[in-house]
């Protein structure tokens, strides 16, 4: 055996154990069904068009166009699909003349890191009162949490391990209000549900394994759950509370008003945010979450110029010195890693928006 082969063997030995036989058979059957459905739809369309053309050509003008929905996006299967890069809602369909917006077909979808898209029909999109229902993704893309109408509870899916846990804590659908929020811990064990952003209605921190739950002060909004600590922000004042999932901790007040908080940096104390109401000035503020002090204000360089886009939030830290800033335009959403010392921004990823996707959800970011 050559030394190169020995070294390659060492790397190959790190490959995880897999059991793909049933997954591959199921995938094959699903694709075959999709192909059969497509073929059937195509046949019906061809036969239908031919009959109309041959027998009733004069009636064409009177026919009402019935859009055929040929959707080949597969449902999220029960097993493992790999970590996801983002989730989004399909947009409402707009019909002109007469103008009609149909949001009945809106659904949650997830996109894996390898680029595959799946529908998540189990995830409720909006309540009976038409309030939007969020999903959330763990920081590493492994876990997905959504609200199931059938279970009247949150469901956490491990997309790498292929397992699923339904929260033992029932949350009635009527409890989901305007701008409800959801956040998920890396291990999928803890979920924070805030029924209504900006209200004093308390949220709840749920341990989906044991069913234990504790209220979260309604004056605070969740930013993230990381390393067993929930990051909660009370706006206007502005206070930041690093609350351990077991409870405790106390808020720290900042000198000034800030919005769009990032998660806590890897050093466990730095956080990035934007000063309010100057948040449109593209100046990131780096704060010390232990003392409340402003460490520095960093003008960002390298974001797109022009007025058709804006910074819409912050996300994860890519290193101890770079935090991700989310920038949205009408056509897409881009993420930039911004160096907190120099302000230099480099584009990290680009996501669909506008007519292709809405309600983009990124890993590790509390969503609403």
């Amino acid at each position, binding site marked *: 055996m*050559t*030394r*190169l*082969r020995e*070294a*390659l*063997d*060492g*790397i*190959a*030995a*790190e*490959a*995880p*154990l*897999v*059991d*793909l*036989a*049933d*997954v*591959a*058979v199921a*995938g*094959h059957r699903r*694709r*075959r069904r999709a192909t059969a459905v497509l073929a059937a739809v195509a046949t019906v369309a061809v036969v239908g068009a031919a009959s109309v053309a041959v027998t009733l050509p004069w009636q064409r003008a009177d026919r009402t166009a019935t859009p055929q929905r040929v959707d080949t996006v597969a449902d999220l299967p029960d097993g*493992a*699909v*790999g*970590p996801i*890069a983002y989730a989004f809602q399909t947009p409402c369909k707009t019909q002109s003349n007469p103008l009609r917006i149909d949001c009945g077909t809106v659904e949650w979808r997830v996109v*894996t*890191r*390898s*680029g*595959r898209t799946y529908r998540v029909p189990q995830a409720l999109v909006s309540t009976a009162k038409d309030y939007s229902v969020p999903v959330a993704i*763990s*920081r*590493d*893309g492994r876990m997905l949490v959504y609200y199931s109408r059938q279970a009247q509870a949150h469901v956490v899916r491990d997309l*790498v391990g292929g397992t699923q846990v339904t929260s033992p804590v029932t949350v009635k659908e009527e409890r989901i209000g305007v701008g409800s929020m959801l956040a998920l811990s*890396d291990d999928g064990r803890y979920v924070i549900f805030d029924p209504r952003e900006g209200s004093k209605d308390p949220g709840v921190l749920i341990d989906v394994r044991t069913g234990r739950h504790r209220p979260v002060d309604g004056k605070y909004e969740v930013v993230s759950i990381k390393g067993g600590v929930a990051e909660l922000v009370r706006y206007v004042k502005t206070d930041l509370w690093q609350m351990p999932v077991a409870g405790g901790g106390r808020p720290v007040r900042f000198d000034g008003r800030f919005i769009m908080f990032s998660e806590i940096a*890897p050093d466990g104390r730095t956080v990035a945010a934007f000063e309010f109401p100057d948040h449109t000035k593209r100046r990131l503020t780096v704060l010390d979450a232990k003392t409340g002090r402003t460490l520095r204000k960093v003008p960002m360089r390298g974001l797109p110029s022009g007025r058709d886009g804006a910074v819409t939030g912050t*996300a*994860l*830290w*890519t*290193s*101890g010195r770079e935090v*991700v800033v989310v920038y949205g335009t009408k056509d897409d959403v881009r*993420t930039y890693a911004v160096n907190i010392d120099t302000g230099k921004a480099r584009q*990290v*990823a*680009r996501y669909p928006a506008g007519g292709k996707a809405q309600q983009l959800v*990124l*890993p*590790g970011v509390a969503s609403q």
Partner: protein
Amino acid sequence: MDRHDDFREFVLARQQGLMRTAYLLTGDAHLAEDLLQSVLIKVARRWSKLSGDGSPEAYTRKALVNQYISWKRRPQPEVLSADLPEHGTCHDDAALQRIMLRQALAKLAPRQRAVIVLRFWEDLTEAQTAEALGCAPGTVKSQAHRALARLRALAPELAYLLNDPEIVEVAR
């Protein structure tokens, strides 16, 4: 008896070996699993023909390499990771060597990486590697030569791995 039983048997017997190949090609456990899964679905579709021909493994390996090269051609947005770079961890020499080799492999062109895996880990002949990659044996030779030269340039510390007579012979 399910008509997929033969296919299941094949996957059960070979999936771990194929997973290792996929892992060496991609360098990422999740991507490797995705890659292998998507290839096995294709294999399941053609199973009746492949099992008749008696060469499902060769077909699967070829599909694995081609699918990997095809994925690498697509634009790769940087993926945000929750994992921070590790610092201050002690590694033994073999672990350090693996880390360096893994980093150097990640910088090779997809075909070069595939040649390294197929020729020097799977121990395929030039002809078999050419068959898997869908190219001429001469191309395999030149790709192997370039890949090894690039590995030497990227990680001079690993030069001793590449100096075994069998490898020098292949690269000549």
